[in-house]
């Protein structure tokens, strides 16, 4: 039994510790792996009779897929990384300003006629996906996709599941609304509280993307992250979050729910909500698959940090708006 210590690079998240430990412990001949995120070091006990350099290469092969690499010598950290945040803040803020400008410009307030048909609900969906609803739903999609792609490079399965869950829930629940003709998910207080939860999640994920937590990872027990990691990588989670977007606060969604409600049949309710969700799909798909592809480009660090800044901004906005909606605080803005 020999003990080796390697330098590790690419550890950007608290759950990386568990991921690396789990992956390496599965390898034959590796007895015990300990990751020290603070020092960026991996210590292994092994029964293998390989040289340290050879071992580093072997083990890197196993964790490369997740964006980590092990080396004997400490790799000189890219100096660029420190400057990235200074580029990311203006970029994130520019997108945030653009979002508010679009809202303020009033171009989203064109007339659509009195009755909701599947055709108009598609257009309403398109409008909704760039409206103030983007602050909650879009912000959540962006923060989750960026977080998922940061953890697992080139894995679009959770994103597909999310969109699938969203479409299915809108179709099924829309149909049910039409069939039973009474309210589900239109309770203001419940949606407002869900919105506040969603915006809190966005702020936390945004801070994580920006890298605020990198400094304080160690102070939190690994068990907490192991729990989050399990949730994050379960198939059911993205699906459930997708389903949950049906209940998130968005005026357009609620207007469509009312329309489905008064449509009077399962089929028409299903069509209205389903087509509405399809209308929101292009923008949300752009956000999520865009994150996934950016995550693989060389601009990944800049993208994650810019997305983080944008998501924090949207999260704070949605949080303050949600609190105002609940009557907890006075409204601070009128966009």
């Amino acid at each position, binding site marked *: 039994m020999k003990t080796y210590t390697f330098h590790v690079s690419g550890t950007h998240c608290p759950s990386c510790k568990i991921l690396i430990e789990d992956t390496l412990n599965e390898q034959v001949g590796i007895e015990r792996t300990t990751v020290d995120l603070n020092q960026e070091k991996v210590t292994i006990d092994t029964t293998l009779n390989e040289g340290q350099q050879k071992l580093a290469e072997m083990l890197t092969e196993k964790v490369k897929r997740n964006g980590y690499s092990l080396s004997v010598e400490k790799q000189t950290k890219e100096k660029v990384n420190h400057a990235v945040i200074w580029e990311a803040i203006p970029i994130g*803020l520019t997108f945030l300003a653009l979002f508010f400008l679009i809202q303020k410009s009033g171009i989203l307030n064109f007339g659509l006629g009195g009755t909701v048909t599947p055709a108009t609900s598609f257009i309403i969906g398109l409008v909704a996906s760039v409206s*103030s609803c983007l602050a909650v739903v879009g912000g959540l999609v962006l923060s989750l996709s960026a977080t998922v792609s940061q953890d697992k490079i080139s894995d679009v399965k959770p994103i597909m599941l999310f969109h699938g869950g969203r479409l299915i829930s809108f179709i099924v629940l829309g149909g049910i609304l039409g069939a039973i003709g009474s309210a589900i998910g239109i309770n203001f207080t419940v949606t407002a509280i869900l919105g506040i939860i969603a915006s809190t999640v966005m702020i936390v994920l945004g801070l994580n993307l920006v890298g605020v937590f990198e400094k304080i990872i160690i102070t939190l027990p690994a068990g907490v992250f192991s729990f989050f990691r399990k949730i994050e990588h379960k198939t059911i989670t993205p699906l459930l979050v997708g389903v949950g977007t049906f209940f998130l606060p968005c005026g357009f969604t609620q*207007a469509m729910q*009312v329309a489905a409600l008064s449509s009077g049949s399962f089929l028409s309710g299903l069509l209205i909500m389903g087509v509405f969700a399809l209308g929101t799909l292009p923008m949300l798909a752009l956000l999520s698959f865009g994150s996934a592809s950016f995550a693989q480009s060389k601009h990944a660090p800049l993208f994650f940090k810019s997305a983080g800044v944008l998501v924090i901004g949207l999260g704070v906005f949605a949080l303050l708006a949600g609190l105002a909606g609940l009557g907890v605080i006075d409204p601070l803005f009128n966009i």
Partner: protein
Amino acid sequence: MEKIITILSIIISIALIGGMIYLVSDGSNTSDDQVAQSQNVEIRDGVQYVTITARGGYTPSVTEIRGGIPTKLVVKTNSTYDCSASLVVRSAGFQKMLQPTGEEIIDLGIVKSGEKVQGVCGMGMYNFLVQAI
């Protein structure tokens, strides 16, 4: 070089944040907003009607009314699908998803001088204020 980027970044960021705050801050207290008032207040048969249009926000955002008389709020929607259709007027205990096109009449009772009635959309992104003087 890195220093220049940092300084530039801070300057641009402050400008952007300032711009956004200016853009979204609630203009309820500025005098410009009060120009549109009085046109949307009408007294008929001793009842004061305040008309607010809800679509992509509420207009006018601030309305001054007479205090001490029965007051009703008339909220008009015209193909309104956005947040402003989900209206909450807490002081009147009103909470409803408005029809996309139509009129909703909300009884405010007698609003005493100095009192304010705040209307807000369900997600809190738009609001309006009716104040009795």
